[in-house]
């Protein structure tokens, strides 16, 4: 009995913390999105009581995001396309790296892992700052292109003024370590004897990869994809640093812009609620397959 009370006491601070700063905070976000406006200050007023909820702000943002006709539909479409390409890039770059380190690397594994963790210790912003320097009109990227004769006669390219290529590449550069890590963890755990069995049964390297390794790494790829896709949907800072132009704005930039103005904060909240609803829909298949995988492991 004493032990039970003790355990409850251990859990209490954490429970109070998440109840207040996760549950209540998310409720506050919803309350703002369904709240009204202060008649004088025009700042959003939260509707704490569900009986006073009004859908007008949510509707306003929903109409703007409406497929094909809404004023922000372009932004939404762009977000999905950018993120889809960035995710494909993360898989193309990240999978071979995770595969090599987890399965092939022998003596070099320690040093590769150390170099691989380094980007996590160097802040995301510093890594973006580095690229802003390289991509400036007078930066080293243009210098290299010039030396290679790829820019003869042209003005130096301004990579940092609203180019989709730059934004997508920056997203890949920024988030790919976060994709590799869970994938590596999942690949490192898998039983190498499967590979030996496949070889013993006569499969070649490619066949083994296609029919054994790839299917077995599906869960890891999925986990990595979810882990980078979620923050990309809320990412406004990458975009702001390497483009900063409305022509490449993403959903995250939109919400952030609204949040900066006192009177538009209700729209920011509504945008965030819509985003969460969308992400929940996208996440459901993953949650289900992940739960199934966990259940299989537990059996």
């Amino acid at each position, binding site marked *: 009995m004493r032990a039970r009370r003790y355990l409850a006491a251990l859990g209490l601070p954490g429970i109070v913390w*998440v109840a207040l700063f996760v549950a209540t905070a*998310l409720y506050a976000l919803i309350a703002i999105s369904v709240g009204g406006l202060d008649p004088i200050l025009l700042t959003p007023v939260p509707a704490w009581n569900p009986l006073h909820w009004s859908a007008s702000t949510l509707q306003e943002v929903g109409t703007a995001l409406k497929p094909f006709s809404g004023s922000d539909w372009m932004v939404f479409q762009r977000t999905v396309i950018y993120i889809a390409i960035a995710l494909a890039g993360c898989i193309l770059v990240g999978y071979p790296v995770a595969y090599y380190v987890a399965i092939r690397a022998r003596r070099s594994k320690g040093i590769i892992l150390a170099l691989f963790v380094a980007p996590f210790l160097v802040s995301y912003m510093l890594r973006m700052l580095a690229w802003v320097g390289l991509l400036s009109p007078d930066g080293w990227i243009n210098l290299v292109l010039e030396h290679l004769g790829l820019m003869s006669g042209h003005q130096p390219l301004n990579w940092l003024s609203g180019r989709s290529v730059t934004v997508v590449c920056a997203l890949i550069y920024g988030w790919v370590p976060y994709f590799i890590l869970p994938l590596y963890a999942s690949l490192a755990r898998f039983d190498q004897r499967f590979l030996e069995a496949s070889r013993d049964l*006569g499969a070649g390297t490619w066949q083994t990869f296609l029919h054994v390794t790839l299917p077995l790494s599906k869960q890891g790829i999925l986990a990595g994809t979810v882990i980078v896709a979620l923050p990309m949907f809320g990412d406004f800072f990458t975009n702001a640093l390497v483009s900063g132009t409305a022509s490449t704005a993403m959903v995250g930039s939109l919400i952030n812009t609204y949040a900066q103005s006192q009177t538009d904060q209700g729209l920011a909240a509504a945008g965030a609620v819509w985003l969460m609803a969308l992400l929940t829909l996208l996440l459901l298949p993953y949650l289900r397959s992940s739960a199934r995988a966990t259940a299989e492991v537990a059996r």
Partner: protein
Amino acid sequence: MSGSGAVSPVPQSPTWSTRLRARPWGGYALAGFVVLYLVWSLAPVLIAFLFSFNHGNSRSVWQGFSTEWWTGPGSVFNVAMYHDAILHSFLLAGIAVAVTVPVGVSLSVFLSRWRGAAARPAGLLATLPLVVPELVLALALFFLVTKLLHFISLGTPAQVIGQVTYILPAVVVITRGRLASIPSGFEEAAMDLGASPLGAFRLVLVPLLGPAILASAIVTFALSIDDFVITQYMSSSSATQSIPMVIYNSTRGSATPALNASAMVVALCTILICGAGYLVYRILNRREEIVVPEAPAEPSGLGPAVGEGAW
């Protein structure tokens, strides 16, 4: 000649050995790709470091070597904005570690040991920030602080609350992974032998959780130093700017290479602190392998399974 075919029952076998000999080329290509990846991922940062030694105001054109941005009047340590932000970053990280680790570890003990209805919803709530984009959590916390909990002011207190909430799931995932490999029988045995619940926790669980606690501290520190969105939303004025905020606000402007230097100061300190922490972690783990040889090699390390273990 026809008889020799019957001797070899596995006709693929020679093909396989040929492939085995051919394999290194594929292996070299893959290894080359990994090297290219590492260069691509780290070279820009090293170049940014180099530019902090530029002799001139540019962060993109090399004008010769100088240490003016490290020692001169316009250097990191002499411009208030930079050194204040560096100090603020470390202040936030220190408080975040001091709050997140105890709250997260004790919450994890509760979540994995409690037999009751409260554990499941509490566990879901504690890991919810993993599946919420940071921007959404930042907005939610911003509204909570400005519209409901007026006694919490934007600035350092709100920034700490935001960072702790954001980092707590990582600590819970790391610690629960470790707890899963510690049978609850250990604490029960300690209590049967006369230890108080507190004694069982302190004398049995805490030492066994040592590596997980350390890993949590390292991860918390790194995440706090790196955090931008929540720290920005919870800030009040330029006095509560962290280094990522300074970078965000001045990268596209005409900031001097002192900006690069300030970012590098924080990065180098983080690498040193986390590297030292990792060495201690290795020592703790090795010592434990000697004491408990059959301890499962749980990947409770530097959070590779963050996000995965949540479900």
